[in-house]
Protein backbone atom coordinates (compact mmCIF):
# COMPACT_ATOMS: atom_id res chain seq x y z
CA UNK A 1 0.00 0.00 0.00
CA UNK A 2 1.31 3.46 -0.85
CA UNK A 3 2.18 6.00 1.82
CA UNK A 4 -0.30 8.53 0.49
CA UNK A 5 -3.09 5.96 0.79
CA UNK A 6 -2.01 4.94 4.27
CA UNK A 7 -1.96 8.60 5.28
CA UNK A 8 -5.47 9.12 3.94
CA UNK A 9 -6.77 6.08 5.82
CA UNK A 10 -5.10 7.35 9.01
CA UNK A 11 -6.58 10.84 8.63
CA UNK A 12 -10.04 9.33 8.11
CA UNK A 13 -9.64 7.17 11.21
CA UNK A 14 -8.55 10.14 13.34
CA UNK A 15 -11.38 12.30 12.02
CA UNK A 16 -13.90 9.59 12.78
CA UNK A 17 -12.99 10.00 16.47
CA UNK A 18 -12.29 13.71 16.67
CA UNK A 19 -12.75 14.23 20.39
CA UNK A 20 -10.72 11.18 21.31
CA UNK A 21 -7.96 12.16 18.88
CA UNK A 22 -7.82 15.63 20.40
CA UNK A 23 -7.72 14.33 23.98
CA UNK A 24 -5.00 11.87 23.04
CA UNK A 25 -3.00 14.66 21.43
CA UNK A 26 -3.40 16.83 24.53
CA UNK A 27 -0.61 15.03 26.36
CA UNK A 28 1.76 15.64 23.49
CA UNK A 29 0.53 19.22 23.03
CA UNK A 30 1.20 20.04 26.69
CA UNK A 31 4.55 18.27 26.65
CA UNK A 32 5.83 20.03 23.54
CA UNK A 33 4.48 23.41 24.64
CA UNK A 34 6.19 22.97 28.03
CA UNK A 35 9.51 22.09 26.40
CA UNK A 36 9.35 25.10 24.08
CA UNK A 37 8.37 27.55 26.83
CA UNK A 38 10.85 26.32 29.43
CA UNK A 39 13.71 26.21 26.94
CA UNK A 40 12.76 29.71 25.79
CA UNK A 41 12.86 30.99 29.36
CA UNK A 42 16.15 29.22 30.03
CA UNK A 43 17.70 30.57 26.84
CA UNK A 44 16.32 34.03 27.56
CA UNK A 45 17.84 34.04 31.05
CA UNK A 46 21.15 32.90 29.61
CA UNK A 47 21.16 35.61 26.99
CA UNK A 48 20.23 38.26 29.55
CA UNK A 49 23.03 37.26 31.90
CA UNK A 50 25.54 37.09 29.08
CA UNK A 51 24.63 40.51 27.81
CA UNK A 52 25.06 41.86 31.35
CA UNK A 53 28.50 40.31 31.60
CA UNK A 54 29.38 41.72 28.21
CA UNK A 55 28.17 45.09 29.51
CA UNK A 56 31.02 45.03 32.02
CA UNK A 57 33.32 45.74 29.12
CA UNK A 58 35.09 43.40 26.78
CA UNK A 59 38.85 42.73 26.84
CA UNK A 60 38.92 43.12 30.62
CA UNK A 61 40.90 40.90 32.96
CA UNK A 62 39.99 40.96 36.64
CA UNK A 63 42.99 40.24 38.82
CA UNK A 64 42.61 39.40 42.47
CA UNK A 65 44.52 37.53 45.13
CA UNK A 66 43.88 33.90 45.97
CA UNK A 67 42.60 31.19 43.68
CA UNK A 68 39.14 31.17 42.17
CA UNK A 69 37.58 28.05 43.44
CA UNK A 70 34.10 27.76 44.73
CA UNK A 71 34.16 27.30 48.46
CA UNK A 72 37.71 28.65 48.85
CA UNK A 73 37.99 30.93 51.88
CA UNK A 74 38.33 34.57 50.91
CA UNK A 75 41.94 35.54 51.38
CA UNK A 76 43.31 38.78 52.71
CA UNK A 77 44.47 40.81 49.80
CA UNK A 78 48.16 41.51 49.56
CA UNK A 79 47.67 43.84 46.61
CA UNK A 80 48.86 47.36 47.32
CA UNK A 81 48.22 50.61 45.61
CA UNK A 82 51.68 50.67 44.03
CA UNK A 83 50.80 47.37 42.30
CA UNK A 84 48.52 49.39 40.05
CA UNK A 85 51.49 51.34 38.80
CA UNK A 86 53.62 48.18 38.65
CA UNK A 87 51.09 46.31 36.50
CA UNK A 88 50.67 49.38 34.33
CA UNK A 89 54.43 49.33 33.69
CA UNK A 90 54.42 45.58 32.99
CA UNK A 91 51.79 45.88 30.27
CA UNK A 92 53.23 49.16 29.05
CA UNK A 93 50.00 51.11 29.44
CA UNK A 94 49.37 52.73 32.84
CA UNK A 95 45.96 54.05 31.70
CA UNK A 96 44.64 50.53 31.20
CA UNK A 97 44.66 49.50 34.86
CA UNK A 98 41.80 50.31 37.18
CA UNK A 99 41.58 49.28 40.78
CA UNK A 100 38.97 48.85 43.43
CA UNK A 101 38.66 48.66 47.14
CA UNK A 102 35.04 48.66 48.13
CA UNK A 103 32.81 48.62 51.15
CA UNK A 104 29.16 49.11 51.89
CA UNK A 105 28.54 52.43 53.58
CA UNK A 106 25.69 54.78 54.37
CA UNK A 107 25.46 57.89 52.22
CA UNK A 108 23.39 60.81 53.52
CA UNK A 109 22.21 64.15 52.25
CA UNK A 110 20.33 66.08 54.93
CA UNK A 111 17.85 63.58 56.35
CA UNK A 112 17.89 61.28 53.31
CA UNK A 113 20.14 58.29 53.56
CA UNK A 114 20.88 55.35 51.31
CA UNK A 115 23.08 52.32 51.76
CA UNK A 116 25.42 51.99 48.85
CA UNK A 117 28.56 50.29 47.59
CA UNK A 118 31.45 52.73 47.93
CA UNK A 119 34.14 51.85 45.41
CA UNK A 120 37.58 53.38 45.81
CA UNK A 121 38.93 53.56 42.28
CA UNK A 122 41.34 55.47 40.11
CA UNK A 123 40.95 57.79 37.15
CA UNK A 124 41.14 54.94 34.61
CA UNK A 125 37.65 53.54 35.27
CA UNK A 126 35.88 55.24 32.32
CA UNK A 127 38.63 54.02 29.98
CA UNK A 128 38.74 50.47 31.27
CA UNK A 129 35.04 49.83 31.77
CA UNK A 130 33.58 52.01 29.01
CA UNK A 131 31.53 53.69 31.66
CA UNK A 132 30.27 57.15 30.84
CA UNK A 133 29.58 60.05 33.16
CA UNK A 134 26.25 61.61 32.24
CA UNK A 135 26.87 64.94 33.92
CA UNK A 136 29.94 66.54 35.45
CA UNK A 137 33.39 64.86 35.53
CA UNK A 138 34.94 61.57 36.59
CA UNK A 139 37.77 61.37 39.16
CA UNK A 140 41.11 62.74 37.96
CA UNK A 141 44.66 61.63 38.65
CA UNK A 142 45.05 64.63 40.94
CA UNK A 143 41.95 63.62 42.90
CA UNK A 144 43.55 60.23 43.51
CA UNK A 145 47.04 61.53 44.24
CA UNK A 146 45.87 64.22 46.64
CA UNK A 147 43.30 62.07 48.33
CA UNK A 148 40.44 64.47 47.61
CA UNK A 149 37.02 63.99 49.10
CA UNK A 150 35.11 63.89 45.84
CA UNK A 151 32.56 61.37 44.61
CA UNK A 152 30.87 60.25 41.43
CA UNK A 153 27.33 58.97 42.05
CA UNK A 154 25.47 56.16 40.33
CA UNK A 155 22.26 57.40 38.71
CA UNK A 156 20.03 55.63 41.23
CA UNK A 157 21.97 57.02 44.20
CA UNK A 158 21.74 60.50 42.72
CA UNK A 159 17.99 60.14 42.20
CA UNK A 160 17.44 58.78 45.72
CA UNK A 161 19.49 61.45 47.43
CA UNK A 162 18.72 64.51 45.39
CA UNK A 163 15.52 63.81 43.46
CA UNK A 164 15.01 66.66 41.02
CA UNK A 165 17.84 68.80 42.47
CA UNK A 166 21.07 68.91 40.45
CA UNK A 167 23.67 67.11 42.63
CA UNK A 168 26.81 68.48 40.93
CA UNK A 169 28.91 70.51 43.37
CA UNK A 170 26.71 69.55 46.32
CA UNK A 171 27.80 67.72 49.47
CA UNK A 172 27.12 64.14 50.45
CA UNK A 173 28.19 62.45 53.67
CA UNK A 174 29.79 58.99 53.32
CA UNK A 175 30.46 57.13 56.55
CA UNK A 176 30.43 60.44 58.36
CA UNK A 177 32.85 62.18 56.02
CA UNK A 178 31.71 64.91 53.65
CA UNK A 179 32.35 64.58 49.94
CA UNK A 180 31.70 66.91 47.02
CA UNK A 181 29.77 65.46 44.04
CA UNK A 182 31.94 65.59 40.92
CA UNK A 183 29.69 63.74 38.50
CA UNK A 184 26.76 61.40 37.95
CA UNK A 185 27.03 58.16 35.96
CA UNK A 186 24.77 57.27 33.10
CA UNK A 187 22.14 54.70 33.96
CA UNK A 188 23.49 51.21 33.19
CA UNK A 189 21.00 48.85 34.78
CA UNK A 190 21.71 45.85 36.92
CA UNK A 191 24.02 42.90 36.68
CA UNK A 192 23.10 39.66 38.48
CA UNK A 193 20.30 41.41 40.28
CA UNK A 194 22.68 44.01 41.77
CA UNK A 195 22.06 47.47 40.41
CA UNK A 196 25.29 49.08 39.27
CA UNK A 197 23.49 52.39 39.45
CA UNK A 198 23.70 52.15 43.25
CA UNK A 199 27.49 52.57 43.31
CA UNK A 200 29.43 55.60 44.45
CA UNK A 201 33.00 56.01 43.22
CA UNK A 202 35.59 57.90 45.28
CA UNK A 203 39.39 58.10 44.87
CA UNK A 204 41.05 54.84 45.99
CA UNK A 205 43.41 56.74 48.28
CA UNK A 206 40.52 58.46 50.03
CA UNK A 207 38.73 55.13 50.30
CA UNK A 208 41.70 53.40 51.96
CA UNK A 209 41.77 56.16 54.56
CA UNK A 210 38.02 56.05 55.02
CA UNK A 211 37.92 52.26 55.39
CA UNK A 212 41.16 52.17 57.39
CA UNK A 213 42.93 49.71 55.06
CA UNK A 214 46.07 49.81 52.94
CA UNK A 215 45.11 46.98 50.56
CA UNK A 216 43.23 47.06 47.30
CA UNK A 217 40.70 44.34 46.47
CA UNK A 218 41.31 43.81 42.81
CA UNK A 219 42.71 45.18 39.61
CA UNK A 220 40.93 45.46 36.30
CA UNK A 221 43.26 45.43 33.30
CA UNK A 222 42.10 46.25 29.82
CA UNK A 223 43.84 44.52 26.93
CA UNK A 224 44.08 46.46 23.64
CA UNK A 225 42.18 43.83 21.62
CA UNK A 226 40.38 40.57 22.32
CA UNK A 227 43.42 38.65 21.05
CA UNK A 228 45.63 40.33 23.63
CA UNK A 229 43.45 39.26 26.56
CA UNK A 230 45.10 35.89 27.22
CA UNK A 231 48.74 37.04 26.77
CA UNK A 232 48.07 40.09 28.96
CA UNK A 233 46.51 37.90 31.63
CA UNK A 234 49.58 35.65 31.68
CA UNK A 235 51.99 38.61 31.78
CA UNK A 236 50.16 40.25 34.66
CA UNK A 237 49.94 37.07 36.72
CA UNK A 238 53.59 36.23 36.08
CA UNK A 239 54.65 39.73 37.14
CA UNK A 240 52.57 39.56 40.32
CA UNK A 241 53.94 36.14 41.25
CA UNK A 242 57.41 37.43 40.74
CA UNK A 243 56.69 40.27 43.08
CA UNK A 244 54.89 38.13 45.66
CA UNK A 245 56.51 34.65 45.39
CA UNK A 246 54.41 33.15 48.22
CA UNK A 247 51.07 34.42 46.97
CA UNK A 248 48.48 33.04 44.60
CA UNK A 249 46.76 35.36 42.13
CA UNK A 250 43.92 34.81 39.77
CA UNK A 251 43.10 36.48 36.50
CA UNK A 252 39.59 36.05 35.24
CA UNK A 253 38.59 37.15 31.77
CA UNK A 254 35.16 38.01 30.54
CA UNK A 255 35.14 34.99 28.26
CA UNK A 256 35.84 32.77 31.27
CA UNK A 257 32.97 34.32 33.18
CA UNK A 258 30.77 33.97 30.13
CA UNK A 259 31.89 30.39 29.69
CA UNK A 260 31.20 29.43 33.30
CA UNK A 261 27.86 31.21 33.43
CA UNK A 262 26.96 29.84 30.03
CA UNK A 263 27.66 26.31 31.26
CA UNK A 264 25.59 26.76 34.38
CA UNK A 265 22.65 28.33 32.59
CA UNK A 266 22.89 25.86 29.72
CA UNK A 267 22.64 23.06 32.25
CA UNK A 268 19.70 24.79 33.88
CA UNK A 269 17.96 25.02 30.51
CA UNK A 270 18.66 21.36 29.91
CA UNK A 271 17.18 20.40 33.29
CA UNK A 272 14.06 22.45 32.54
CA UNK A 273 13.76 20.77 29.15
CA UNK A 274 14.20 17.35 30.74
CA UNK A 275 11.44 18.04 33.26
CA UNK A 276 9.15 19.15 30.43
CA UNK A 277 10.14 16.09 28.43
CA UNK A 278 8.68 13.89 31.17
CA UNK A 279 5.23 15.21 30.34
CA UNK A 280 5.95 14.44 26.69
CA UNK A 281 6.75 10.89 27.75
CA UNK A 282 3.48 10.64 29.66
CA UNK A 283 1.72 11.93 26.56
CA UNK A 284 3.37 9.17 24.57
CA UNK A 285 2.09 6.55 26.99
CA UNK A 286 -1.40 8.00 26.45
CA UNK A 287 -1.01 7.62 22.71
CA UNK A 288 0.07 4.02 23.16
CA UNK A 289 -2.93 3.34 25.37
CA UNK A 290 -5.46 4.84 22.98
CA UNK A 291 -3.91 3.09 20.01
CA UNK A 292 -4.30 -0.24 21.80
CA UNK A 293 -7.97 0.54 22.42
CA UNK A 294 -8.32 1.54 18.78
CA UNK A 295 -6.76 -1.72 17.59
CA UNK A 296 -9.18 -3.68 19.73
CA UNK A 297 -12.17 -1.69 18.52
CA UNK A 298 -11.19 -2.09 14.91
CA UNK A 299 -10.30 -5.77 15.06
CA UNK A 300 -13.01 -6.61 12.51
CA UNK A 301 -11.78 -3.92 10.17
CA UNK A 302 -8.27 -5.33 10.45
CA UNK A 303 -9.59 -8.85 9.79
CA UNK A 304 -11.47 -7.63 6.75
CA UNK A 305 -8.48 -5.78 5.34
CA UNK A 306 -6.38 -8.88 5.79
CA UNK A 307 -9.01 -11.05 4.10
CA UNK A 308 -8.93 -8.62 1.18
CA UNK A 309 -5.17 -9.01 0.83
CA UNK A 310 -3.58 -6.61 3.33
CA UNK A 311 -0.24 -7.94 4.53
CA UNK A 312 0.94 -7.69 8.10
CA UNK A 313 3.18 -4.79 7.06
CA UNK A 314 0.25 -2.89 5.50
CA UNK A 315 -1.73 -3.02 8.74
CA UNK A 316 1.28 -2.19 10.92
CA UNK A 317 2.10 0.77 8.68
CA UNK A 318 -1.47 2.01 8.80
CA UNK A 319 -1.62 2.06 12.60
CA UNK A 320 1.90 3.41 12.96
CA UNK A 321 1.09 6.30 10.65
CA UNK A 322 -2.01 6.94 12.71
CA UNK A 323 0.04 7.15 15.92
CA UNK A 324 2.72 9.32 14.35
CA UNK A 325 0.08 11.57 12.83
CA UNK A 326 -1.49 12.00 16.28
CA UNK A 327 1.76 13.01 17.94
CA UNK A 328 2.93 15.11 14.99
CA UNK A 329 -0.25 17.16 14.86
CA UNK A 330 -0.03 17.40 18.65
CA UNK A 331 3.59 18.49 18.27
CA UNK A 332 2.74 21.25 15.81
CA UNK A 333 -0.09 22.55 17.98
CA UNK A 334 2.13 22.33 21.07
CA UNK A 335 4.88 24.19 19.26
CA UNK A 336 2.52 26.99 18.26
CA UNK A 337 1.13 27.19 21.81
CA UNK A 338 4.63 27.13 23.29
CA UNK A 339 5.90 29.90 21.04
CA UNK A 340 2.76 31.91 21.74
CA UNK A 341 3.15 31.44 25.50
CA UNK A 342 6.85 32.37 25.33
CA UNK A 343 6.09 35.56 23.40
CA UNK A 344 3.33 36.35 25.88
CA UNK A 345 5.68 35.77 28.83
CA UNK A 346 8.18 38.07 27.17
CA UNK A 347 5.64 40.81 26.67
CA UNK A 348 3.74 40.58 29.96
CA UNK A 349 6.22 39.36 32.59
CA UNK A 350 9.79 40.25 33.54
CA UNK A 351 10.85 36.75 32.45
CA UNK A 352 12.98 37.01 29.37
CA UNK A 353 12.05 34.30 26.84
CA UNK A 354 14.16 33.58 23.83
CA UNK A 355 12.97 31.06 21.26
CA UNK A 356 16.08 29.28 20.09
CA UNK A 357 15.67 27.99 16.54
CA UNK A 358 16.49 24.47 17.66
CA UNK A 359 13.87 24.11 20.39
CA UNK A 360 10.79 23.91 18.12
CA UNK A 361 12.73 21.69 15.73
CA UNK A 362 13.73 19.43 18.61
CA UNK A 363 10.24 19.40 20.11
CA UNK A 364 8.77 18.54 16.71
CA UNK A 365 11.25 15.73 16.04
CA UNK A 366 10.74 14.36 19.53
CA UNK A 367 6.96 14.32 19.07
CA UNK A 368 7.37 12.41 15.80
CA UNK A 369 9.77 10.07 17.62
CA UNK A 370 7.28 9.60 20.46
CA UNK A 371 4.67 8.59 17.89
CA UNK A 372 6.97 6.00 16.37
CA UNK A 373 8.17 4.70 19.73
CA UNK A 374 4.76 4.42 21.36
CA UNK A 375 2.96 3.49 18.14
CA UNK A 376 5.10 0.50 17.26
CA UNK A 377 3.73 -1.80 19.93
CA UNK A 378 0.00 -1.31 19.16
CA UNK A 379 0.69 -1.27 15.42
CA UNK A 380 2.57 -4.57 15.56
CA UNK A 381 -0.19 -6.06 17.62
CA UNK A 382 -2.68 -4.97 14.94
CA UNK A 383 -0.49 -6.43 12.19
CA UNK A 384 -0.23 -9.78 13.95
CA UNK A 385 -3.99 -10.33 14.28
CA UNK A 386 -5.12 -13.51 12.56
CA UNK A 387 -7.79 -12.75 9.94
CA UNK A 388 -10.05 -15.61 11.04
CA UNK A 389 -9.97 -14.54 14.69
CA UNK A 390 -10.37 -10.88 13.74
CA UNK A 391 -13.39 -11.47 11.52
CA UNK A 392 -15.07 -13.59 14.18
CA UNK A 393 -15.12 -10.82 16.84
CA UNK A 394 -18.35 -8.94 17.22
Amino acid at each position, binding site marked *: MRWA*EALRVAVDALRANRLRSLLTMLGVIIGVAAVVVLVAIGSGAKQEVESQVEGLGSNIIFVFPGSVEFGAAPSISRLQLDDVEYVGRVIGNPDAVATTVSSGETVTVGSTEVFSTIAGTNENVPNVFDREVARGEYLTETDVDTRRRVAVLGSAVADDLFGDIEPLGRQVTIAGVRFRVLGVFEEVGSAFGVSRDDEVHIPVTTAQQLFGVDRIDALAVKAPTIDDVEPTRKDVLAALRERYPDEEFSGVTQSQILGTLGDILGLLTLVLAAIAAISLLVGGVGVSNIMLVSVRERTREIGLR*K*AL*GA*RRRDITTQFLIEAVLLTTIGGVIGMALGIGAALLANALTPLPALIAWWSPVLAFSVSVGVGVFFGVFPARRAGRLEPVEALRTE
Partner: protein
Amino acid sequence: MTTPAIEALDVSRTYSLGGVDVHALSGITLRIAPGEYASIVGPSGSGKSTLMHLLGLLDRPSSGAILVGGRDATSLTDSELAALRNRTIGFVFQAFQLLPRTTALENVALPLLYRGVGRGERRRRAADALAAVGLSARLAHKPSELSGGEQQRVAIARALVGEPALLLADEPTGNLDTRTGHEVMETLERLNGERDVAVVIVTHDREIASRAQRQIRIRDGRIESDNPDDAATATA
Protein backbone atom coordinates in the same frame (compact mmCIF):
# COMPACT_ATOMS: atom_id res chain seq x y z
CA MET B 1 -8.79 -32.41 -17.16
CA THR B 2 -8.54 -28.69 -16.36
CA THR B 3 -6.63 -27.45 -13.36
CA PRO B 4 -9.10 -26.87 -10.51
CA ALA B 5 -9.58 -23.27 -9.36
CA ILE B 6 -8.95 -24.51 -5.86
CA GLU B 7 -8.25 -27.89 -4.42
CA ALA B 8 -8.16 -29.32 -0.90
CA LEU B 9 -6.03 -32.46 -0.54
CA ASP B 10 -6.67 -34.59 2.56
CA VAL B 11 -7.07 -31.49 4.66
CA SER B 12 -7.49 -31.64 8.43
CA ARG B 13 -7.80 -28.83 10.92
CA THR B 14 -7.41 -29.38 14.62
CA TYR B 15 -7.93 -26.74 17.29
CA SER B 16 -6.63 -26.95 20.78
CA LEU B 17 -9.32 -25.83 23.18
CA GLY B 18 -8.28 -25.86 26.82
CA GLY B 19 -5.78 -28.64 26.21
CA VAL B 20 -8.31 -30.78 24.31
CA ASP B 21 -7.82 -31.29 20.59
CA VAL B 22 -10.94 -30.58 18.59
CA HIS B 23 -10.99 -32.03 15.10
CA ALA B 24 -12.91 -29.44 13.11
CA LEU B 25 -12.07 -31.09 9.79
CA SER B 26 -10.67 -34.54 9.12
CA GLY B 27 -9.29 -35.63 5.76
CA ILE B 28 -11.29 -33.48 3.39
CA THR B 29 -10.46 -33.73 -0.30
CA LEU B 30 -12.32 -31.39 -2.61
CA ARG B 31 -11.82 -29.82 -6.03
CA ILE B 32 -13.64 -26.76 -7.33
CA ALA B 33 -13.41 -26.34 -11.11
CA PRO B 34 -13.06 -22.94 -12.75
CA GLY B 35 -16.46 -21.31 -13.17
CA GLU B 36 -18.22 -23.97 -11.07
CA TYR B 37 -21.23 -23.10 -8.87
CA ALA B 38 -21.17 -25.15 -5.68
CA SER B 39 -22.59 -24.99 -2.20
CA ILE B 40 -21.17 -26.32 1.02
CA VAL B 41 -23.98 -27.12 3.38
CA GLY B 42 -24.10 -28.49 6.86
CA PRO B 43 -25.45 -27.79 10.33
CA SER B 44 -23.63 -25.39 12.60
CA GLY B 45 -20.54 -26.97 14.11
CA SER B 46 -20.14 -29.24 11.08
CA GLY B 47 -16.85 -27.59 10.10
CA LYS B 48 -18.14 -25.74 7.04
CA SER B 49 -16.85 -22.37 8.28
CA THR B 50 -13.45 -23.91 8.95
CA LEU B 51 -13.48 -25.34 5.42
CA MET B 52 -14.36 -21.92 4.02
CA HIS B 53 -11.47 -20.32 5.94
CA LEU B 54 -9.09 -22.92 4.57
CA LEU B 55 -10.34 -22.62 1.00
CA GLY B 56 -10.15 -18.81 1.39
CA LEU B 57 -6.51 -19.01 2.57
CA LEU B 58 -7.53 -17.23 5.77
CA ASP B 59 -6.28 -20.16 7.83
CA ARG B 60 -3.77 -22.95 7.36
CA PRO B 61 -4.63 -26.66 7.56
CA SER B 62 -3.09 -28.74 10.37
CA SER B 63 -2.30 -31.35 7.71
CA GLY B 64 -2.94 -31.75 4.02
CA ALA B 65 -2.61 -29.07 1.40
CA ILE B 66 -4.58 -26.35 -0.34
CA LEU B 67 -3.72 -25.85 -4.01
CA VAL B 68 -4.70 -22.65 -5.76
CA GLY B 69 -4.64 -22.91 -9.54
CA GLY B 70 -2.51 -26.02 -9.10
CA ARG B 71 -0.03 -24.25 -6.86
CA ASP B 72 0.56 -25.50 -3.31
CA ALA B 73 -0.11 -22.74 -0.79
CA THR B 74 1.25 -24.70 2.18
CA SER B 75 4.77 -23.31 2.13
CA LEU B 76 3.86 -19.69 1.46
CA THR B 77 4.66 -16.99 3.98
CA ASP B 78 1.85 -14.89 5.46
CA SER B 79 2.67 -12.05 3.05
CA GLU B 80 2.67 -14.33 0.03
CA LEU B 81 -0.57 -15.86 1.22
CA ALA B 82 -2.11 -12.39 1.54
CA ALA B 83 -1.02 -11.53 -2.01
CA LEU B 84 -2.37 -14.84 -3.37
CA ARG B 85 -5.66 -14.32 -1.51
CA ASN B 86 -5.87 -10.82 -2.93
CA ARG B 87 -5.45 -12.04 -6.51
CA THR B 88 -7.48 -15.23 -6.50
CA ILE B 89 -10.24 -15.11 -3.90
CA GLY B 90 -13.19 -12.83 -3.27
CA PHE B 91 -15.20 -12.96 -0.06
CA VAL B 92 -18.84 -12.22 0.67
CA PHE B 93 -19.71 -12.34 4.38
CA GLN B 94 -23.00 -12.74 6.18
CA ALA B 95 -22.59 -9.38 7.92
CA PHE B 96 -21.44 -7.61 4.73
CA GLN B 97 -18.24 -6.35 6.43
CA LEU B 98 -18.19 -3.00 4.69
CA LEU B 99 -16.09 -0.23 6.19
CA PRO B 100 -18.39 2.35 7.75
CA ARG B 101 -17.88 6.04 6.88
CA THR B 102 -16.47 4.90 3.58
CA THR B 103 -18.32 5.20 0.26
CA ALA B 104 -19.47 2.19 -1.74
CA LEU B 105 -16.90 3.05 -4.40
CA GLU B 106 -14.01 3.12 -1.90
CA ASN B 107 -15.20 -0.08 -0.23
CA VAL B 108 -15.21 -1.86 -3.56
CA ALA B 109 -11.79 -0.43 -4.50
CA LEU B 110 -10.18 -1.72 -1.27
CA PRO B 111 -8.76 -5.03 -2.62
CA LEU B 112 -7.11 -3.13 -5.49
CA LEU B 113 -5.43 -0.82 -2.94
CA TYR B 114 -3.54 -3.79 -1.52
CA ARG B 115 -2.58 -4.84 -5.01
CA GLY B 116 -0.87 -1.49 -5.67
CA VAL B 117 -3.33 -0.36 -8.35
CA GLY B 118 -3.33 3.43 -8.84
CA ARG B 119 -6.18 5.57 -7.60
CA GLY B 120 -7.70 6.45 -10.97
CA GLU B 121 -7.61 2.85 -12.16
CA ARG B 122 -9.05 1.67 -8.84
CA ARG B 123 -11.99 4.02 -9.07
CA ARG B 124 -12.68 3.08 -12.67
CA ARG B 125 -12.67 -0.64 -11.97
CA ALA B 126 -14.68 -0.21 -8.75
CA ALA B 127 -17.30 1.78 -10.68
CA ASP B 128 -17.45 -1.00 -13.29
CA ALA B 129 -17.89 -3.64 -10.57
CA LEU B 130 -20.68 -1.61 -8.95
CA ALA B 131 -22.36 -1.23 -12.33
CA ALA B 132 -22.23 -5.02 -12.72
CA VAL B 133 -24.29 -5.43 -9.52
CA GLY B 134 -26.69 -2.65 -10.58
CA LEU B 135 -25.49 0.01 -8.14
CA SER B 136 -24.19 2.65 -10.55
CA ALA B 137 -26.39 5.22 -8.84
CA ARG B 138 -24.98 4.47 -5.38
CA LEU B 139 -21.24 5.03 -5.82
CA ALA B 140 -20.91 7.84 -3.28
CA HIS B 141 -23.28 6.34 -0.71
CA LYS B 142 -21.98 5.11 2.60
CA PRO B 143 -23.07 1.71 3.98
CA SER B 144 -25.43 3.37 6.49
CA GLU B 145 -27.23 4.98 3.54
CA LEU B 146 -27.81 1.66 1.76
CA SER B 147 -30.36 -1.11 2.33
CA GLY B 148 -29.17 -4.56 3.45
CA GLY B 149 -29.55 -5.97 -0.08
CA GLU B 150 -27.62 -3.04 -1.54
CA GLN B 151 -24.87 -3.47 1.05
CA GLN B 152 -24.50 -7.13 0.17
CA ARG B 153 -24.34 -6.24 -3.54
CA VAL B 154 -21.58 -3.74 -2.72
CA ALA B 155 -19.79 -6.62 -0.97
CA ILE B 156 -20.26 -8.79 -4.08
CA ALA B 157 -18.83 -6.01 -6.25
CA ARG B 158 -15.87 -5.82 -3.85
CA ALA B 159 -15.36 -9.59 -4.08
CA LEU B 160 -15.34 -9.46 -7.86
CA VAL B 161 -13.41 -6.25 -8.52
CA GLY B 162 -10.08 -8.05 -8.47
CA GLU B 163 -11.30 -10.70 -10.95
CA PRO B 164 -10.69 -13.68 -8.64
CA ALA B 165 -10.87 -17.31 -9.66
CA LEU B 166 -13.08 -18.13 -6.69
CA LEU B 167 -15.81 -16.28 -4.86
CA LEU B 168 -16.52 -17.59 -1.37
CA ALA B 169 -19.85 -16.51 0.10
CA ASP B 170 -20.45 -17.28 3.79
CA GLU B 171 -24.20 -17.27 4.50
CA PRO B 172 -24.66 -14.40 2.03
CA THR B 173 -28.40 -14.19 2.67
CA GLY B 174 -28.24 -14.74 6.43
CA ASN B 175 -28.88 -11.09 7.32
CA LEU B 176 -31.48 -10.47 4.57
CA ASP B 177 -35.20 -11.07 4.19
CA THR B 178 -36.26 -13.82 1.79
CA ARG B 179 -37.01 -11.59 -1.20
CA THR B 180 -33.79 -9.57 -0.91
CA GLY B 181 -31.90 -12.80 -0.30
CA HIS B 182 -33.21 -14.15 -3.59
CA GLU B 183 -32.14 -10.98 -5.40
CA VAL B 184 -28.65 -11.32 -3.97
CA MET B 185 -28.50 -14.98 -5.00
CA GLU B 186 -29.66 -14.06 -8.49
CA THR B 187 -26.93 -11.45 -8.72
CA LEU B 188 -24.32 -14.03 -7.65
CA GLU B 189 -25.64 -16.59 -10.12
CA ARG B 190 -25.77 -14.10 -12.98
CA LEU B 191 -22.14 -13.03 -12.35
CA ASN B 192 -21.10 -16.70 -12.09
CA GLY B 193 -22.62 -17.19 -15.54
CA GLU B 194 -21.20 -14.01 -17.05
CA ARG B 195 -17.69 -14.25 -15.69
CA ASP B 196 -15.09 -16.94 -15.34
CA VAL B 197 -15.43 -17.17 -11.57
CA ALA B 198 -16.24 -20.20 -9.45
CA VAL B 199 -18.81 -19.46 -6.76
CA VAL B 200 -18.96 -21.45 -3.52
CA ILE B 201 -21.82 -20.68 -1.17
CA VAL B 202 -21.38 -21.81 2.43
CA THR B 203 -24.73 -22.09 4.16
CA HIS B 204 -26.87 -24.06 6.56
CA ASP B 205 -29.95 -23.16 4.48
CA ARG B 206 -30.82 -26.16 2.28
CA GLU B 207 -33.01 -24.07 0.01
CA ILE B 208 -30.16 -21.69 -0.78
CA ALA B 209 -27.77 -24.63 -1.11
CA SER B 210 -30.03 -26.45 -3.52
CA ARG B 211 -29.77 -23.62 -6.06
CA ALA B 212 -26.21 -24.71 -6.82
CA GLN B 213 -25.29 -27.28 -9.46
CA ARG B 214 -23.29 -29.14 -6.88
CA GLN B 215 -23.97 -29.57 -3.19
CA ILE B 216 -21.30 -30.69 -0.78
CA ARG B 217 -22.71 -31.79 2.57
CA ILE B 218 -20.46 -31.60 5.59
CA ARG B 219 -21.09 -33.29 8.88
CA ASP B 220 -18.71 -33.71 11.82
CA GLY B 221 -15.76 -32.48 9.85
CA ARG B 222 -16.19 -34.92 6.97
CA ILE B 223 -17.83 -34.81 3.59
CA GLU B 224 -21.11 -36.63 3.95
CA SER B 225 -22.14 -36.39 0.34
CA ASP B 226 -21.06 -34.65 -2.82
CA ASN B 227 -23.09 -34.64 -6.02
CA PRO B 228 -20.84 -33.15 -8.63
CA ASP B 229 -22.44 -32.74 -12.02
CA ASP B 230 -19.02 -32.75 -13.56
CA ALA B 231 -16.90 -35.88 -13.35
CA ALA B 232 -13.69 -33.81 -13.55
CA THR B 233 -14.32 -32.43 -10.05
CA ALA B 234 -15.30 -35.68 -8.37
CA THR B 235 -13.96 -36.30 -4.90
CA ALA B 236 -11.29 -38.91 -4.56
